[in-house]
């Protein structure tokens, strides 16, 4: 009998393990949820997938860890590169994985416009609440009062609520889960990766940085997961989000789920109109 291996390993490049992440880093848990979803969807290998990431800790998730084509791009530009990949070869499943600093600060414009276009991408935002790779500076998602390398007296800039922002765009799918909500998160991955899914799909995973958030708080990774289980409250409709957040909790759930035609479909019908117009 061969030695049993963790279920994620079939999607990974053995030769680059162990991961480059800090002990206890939740990046690996996010990967587990995604791979579990893929496994349950019957996805055997990832040859039809392209993973695109930018710069930051979570941008190392696909490149080179995942056994698939992957583009590790410039800071903030993953969504733009992914857009190019998808338009040039719509057959590919294009998944962007990045952090909050990468996707929302330096890459915020691209994120917003990909959502506006309902671009056929799955964007996974691992929200670790700080810039971790550059040693713990303020991120646009850092909670008020947080001490970071650049807010040593406590953050006074109100954070952005990315998922809530994206609800009001053309995005087809917007969900937020905490890393502690493993099964729900996995379910979201299944929805966002299933064959019928299209358009812009956004999954935010609240996964505080183990080094610059969790350890600063004097907690262990396990304790943090238990704490998140309490702090993350599932809402059934977006009208409940504010209510939950006013109570100091993190609202999680599937905030938006539609099946509008994605950009690729819209472009194809536009192109056929163009062909008709030119034949006249």
């Amino acid at each position: 009998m061969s030695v049993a291996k963790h279920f994620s390993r079939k999607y990974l490049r053995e030769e680059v393990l162990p991961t480059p992440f800090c002990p206890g880093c939740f990046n690996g848990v996010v990967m587990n949820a995604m791979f579990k979803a893929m496994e349950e969807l019957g996805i055997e290998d990832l040859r039809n997938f392209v993973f695109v990431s930018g710069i930051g800790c979570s941008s190392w998730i696909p490149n080179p860890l995942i056994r698939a084509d992957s583009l590790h791009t410039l800071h903030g530009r993953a969504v733009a590169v992914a857009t190019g990949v998808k338009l040039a070869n719509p057959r590919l499943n294009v998944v962007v994985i990045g952090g909050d600093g990468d996707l929302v600060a330096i890459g915020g414009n691209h994120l917003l416009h990909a959502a506006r276009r309902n671009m056929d991408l799955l964007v996974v935002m691992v929200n670790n609440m700080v810039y971790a790779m550059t040693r713990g500076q303020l991120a646009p998602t850092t909670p008020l009062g947080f001490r970071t390398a650049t807010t040593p007296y406590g953050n006074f800039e109100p954070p952005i609520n990315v998922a809530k922002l994206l609800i009001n765009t053309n995005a087809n799918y917007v969900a937020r889960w905490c890393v502690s909500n493993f099964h729900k998160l996995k379910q979201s991955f299944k929805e966002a990766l299933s064959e019928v899914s299209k358009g812009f799909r956004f999954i935010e995973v609240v996964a505080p940085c183990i080094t610059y958030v969790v350890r600063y708080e004097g907690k262990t990774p396990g304790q943090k997961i238990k704490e998140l289980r309490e702090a993350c409250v599932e809402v059934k409709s977006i009208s409940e989000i504010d209510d939950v957040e006013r109570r100091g909790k993190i609202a999680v759930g599937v905030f938006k789920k539609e099946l509008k035609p994605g950009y690729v479909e819209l472009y194809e019908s536009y192109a056929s109109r163009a062909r008709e117009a030119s034949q006249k």
Partner: protein
Amino acid sequence: MVRALLSGNEAVAEGALAAGCNFFAGYPITPSSEIMHYMARELPKRGGSFIQAEDELAAINMVIGASWAGARAMTATSGPGFSLMQEGLGYAIMTETPLVIVNVMRAGPATGQATKAAQGDLMQARWGRHGDQMIPVLAPSSPQEAYDLTIEAFAIAEELRTPVVVLSDEFIAHGREVVELREKVEIPSRRKPRDPSEPPFGSPDPRIAPPMPPLGEGYYVIVTGSTHNEYGYRDVHSFETHFRLVKRLVDKIRLNVDKLFRYEVLGDDDAEVAIVCFGSVSRSAKQALRMLRSRGVRAKLLRLVTLWPMNDEVVRRELRSAKTIVVPEMNLGQLIYDVQRLAREDSRIVAVNKVGGGIPIYPSEIVEAALGGSR
């Protein structure tokens, strides 16, 4: 052969389409927008993709993504947008992504004069990225050349897996001239690795680009802008990996200089007066050359079509006999650095600089500079 009356911008677009360009991403900017308009009209009906990006950062990165997905991809911009695209160009160099980028030069810095021609981006085209790098830069002097060199740029991009800059300017872009269009242009398709063991980021001969594995075909390619080994694995610590990679990327262009370097020489072999120029100014320079020779001056013109890499040997040889060298350029002096470096020590180098207001350098000004104070 079809003959058409085209602006330089239209000629670039026609050249791109002839070369098989099937992806364009761009952001509106004067004086390059007509290239984008043309592609917006043509690509959807020809089965290609066109997208108006949210900014130039997005445009160049979309082009990079499309190129990896197998497209023949291009973007076009002008000064401010070219500045924003430097970041993406650096990434394209590091990842050996073929693409064509057209910069229609206008008077800068900053917003400068959006509708006025200039040649101030020469150094930026060569050196705009951080780190050690080299990419080919081609400079047309007419709509006909804008057409021909855009085709050429795609061929170079594909062969050497590199971004290629086409450096046009507002005069060429908005001027309309007669362009002879080719019936069919064959550009060899990209070489894929024989099997996954053939390294996509390494080559025993630095003059030959490694094969490029397309996405979605099971190569499981790892692309990164960080320092990587020949299989794409990141290595951000070792001296050997970094030096080997960056040296090869620069050598890939530098050692192909004979193949890449295009230039035009007119006039007398033993010229006393030489005019060195590139781009639209060459048109005035040619007339100036004729005017000088008709006055009995032994004169020649050296026009650089390829601005980078530079063939020092050729320039040195062509300037050997010249006692006076005139360098007309629509900037405050950029090409002149090459001339100063490569001319013989006792030659008199005269700059003719004029930029802004849409006023070209006229032949008489070049003639005057050539004769003024000559012994």
